[in-house]
């Protein structure tokens, strides 16, 4: 087994072990506090209900609660180190306590996801092919295996459907360079060329909630 496949498997196992936060346990006060922070502060960048307008900021609407919470903890612990994580979210997450993180993750996971902009022309078909089948010859696994056939994600696997392509490309590059140090995705992105990242990102951006 190649080292890359091993790391992918290890990563998978780790993700499955992640405990899931049960949103139903949230008390009304945490919910209300999270809603106030989300609309009063996070929304200034991440847009209304997490439908971000500026592509620099990722869409949070409909993202899975466990993934969101894990990212907020990673920002707070300063372990997610890509440039914009460091420049923006380390500061933002520094004072979020565990309850508020759970509340915010819950708030955004409940918002309705939407399709993003449909642009890209011929690249879309290439992107779709890469997403569904990967490129085994070049060591690129099918994204769909983990992120789901419609890129809807689940639990610790983030939803990618409808995400800004600019943000997706930025993340793939950060996984590749290990600035965002996640073994699974490093293995995936390692062999990807810029055009491939762009094609798959444009395809993902165009997807709606149930593709």
């Amino acid at each position: 087994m190649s080292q890359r496949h091993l790391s992918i498997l290890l990563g998978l196992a780790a993700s499955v072990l992640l405990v899931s936060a049960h949103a139903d346990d949230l008390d009304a006060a945490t919910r209300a506090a999270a809603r106030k922070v989300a609309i009063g502060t996070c929304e200034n960048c991440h847009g209304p209900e997490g439908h971000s307008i500026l592509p620099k900021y990722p869409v949070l609407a409909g993202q899975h609660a466990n993934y969101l919470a894990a990212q907020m903890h990673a920002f707070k612990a300063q372990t997610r180190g890509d440039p914009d994580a460091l420049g923006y979210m380390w500061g933002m997450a520094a004072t979020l306590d565990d309850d508020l993180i759970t509340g915010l993750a819950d708030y955004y996971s409940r918002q309705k996801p939407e399709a993003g902009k449909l642009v890209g022309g011929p690249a879309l078909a290439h992107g779709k092919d890469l997403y569904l089948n990967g490129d085994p010859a070049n060591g690129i696994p099918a994204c769909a295996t983990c992120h789901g056939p419609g890129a809807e994600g689940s639990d610790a696997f983030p939803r990618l459907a409808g995400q800004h392509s600019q943000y997706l490309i930025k993340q793939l590059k950060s996984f590749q360079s290990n600035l965002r140090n996640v073994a699974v995705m490093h293995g995936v992105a390692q062999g990807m060329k810029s055009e491939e990242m762009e094609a798959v990102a444009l395809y993902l951006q165009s997807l709606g909630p149930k593709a």
Partner: protein
Amino acid sequence: MAALAALLATPMAHAVPSFARQTGMTCEACHTVYPELNHFGRMFKANGYTLDNLKQVRGITAKKDEMLSLADLPPLSAMIQVSYTQLAKPLPDGTGAPGHSQSGTVDFPQQFSIFYAGKIAPHVGAFLQITYGNDSGTIGIDNTDIRYANNFIFENDKSLVYGLTINNNPTVQDLWNSTPAFGFPYAGTNAGVSPIAGTQIDGTLAQDVAGISAYAMWNEQLYAELGVYRSAKQGAVNPVSGAAGPLDGTTSNVLRSSAPYFRLAYEYNWGRNSLEVGTYGATFKLYPGGGTTTAPALLSGPFNEFRDVAEDFQYQFIADEHVFSLTGTRIHENMNLDASYAAGASANSRDTLTTTRVNANYYYQRKYGGTLAHFATTGSIDNVLYPAPVAPGVVTSANGSPETTGWVGELNYVPWLNMKLSLQYTHFGKFNGASTNYDGFNRNASANDTTYLLFWLVY
């Protein structure tokens, strides 16, 4: 004279690293390139500069009511501006004898400032600046904006941010860079020649007034503000008591009661674009004052009234590599000069003045950038308000017209996000009414063209 006060107003506008320290975010979270704000920067300001991600020193009562919440470190910043100015043609020598002054001026520093910028208490924040300027040679209060802000979230998930600001320069509290206090040029020479006329709201009363206003921003889109300003002169003492104030007739341009101020703006964001259109204005009733013991003036009775109404817009395109913005404003001033006219200080009892500015800014990778700006001031001819030739000219107007038009071109290099090197060239097509012999002493408008090199550090 009211218009002359414009000569003293140097454009100053700032952004400060203490905000970055307080929020834990990079400058570009709030700025395109300082001091221009992006949408988040505007919301940060509207929210009273209070977003604070630092560990807090707390005080609570037995009932857990919060009594104190202080950041570990005070949000302090320092700024220094060092500059060199070269006038196209030297000024005539001040001795009155034939001769020329030096045409190059080194300002070291042009300005040195200390800021307290950030949260003071929950919901209360401040942007407070103390400046040493080489032109005044003293330390004084500079742009200051102290805020209380809070927000309300509606059932439908829309937000309403509301607050109060106490500040000392009309528009310093504004969120967009199309209004005077934080508009382009963000820095300018204080060693050049300033045109004779400027509207009151355009920096003329900066740091000479204090005001309070209430504002609200709905859904991060619609902004409305109403307030009043009163005279708050710096360095003025009452000549009888020898103590600060109350102001008397020896002081010029004292506000009669309060000056109402309004602002309305709408912002729309789509993709990487942000567009704002708005209007703002104020009405200033000013006693000319400026009397002496032999020629006393009254701080009652006749006054001049300046009605300023302005429109503005700002368009921003913000991508990772390219940042572009286009801002503009047009300020129209109706002057009712009854007091000055009666005192023989103006030729007409009604004058108008209009200033228009349009600025286009571009940055590549937030490192290399430039601005091209056009400015124009036009207005009524008034041979007394805009003084006729007195030797040695320069700041006079041969034809009594305030018309001043021209261009500014600026190149910027930002090696670090808190360091800027600028080369600015200002060309005057017309100055105080004409392009040639504008002052009656054979000085042409282009003689006042300036080349200005600025090194600007904020820490």
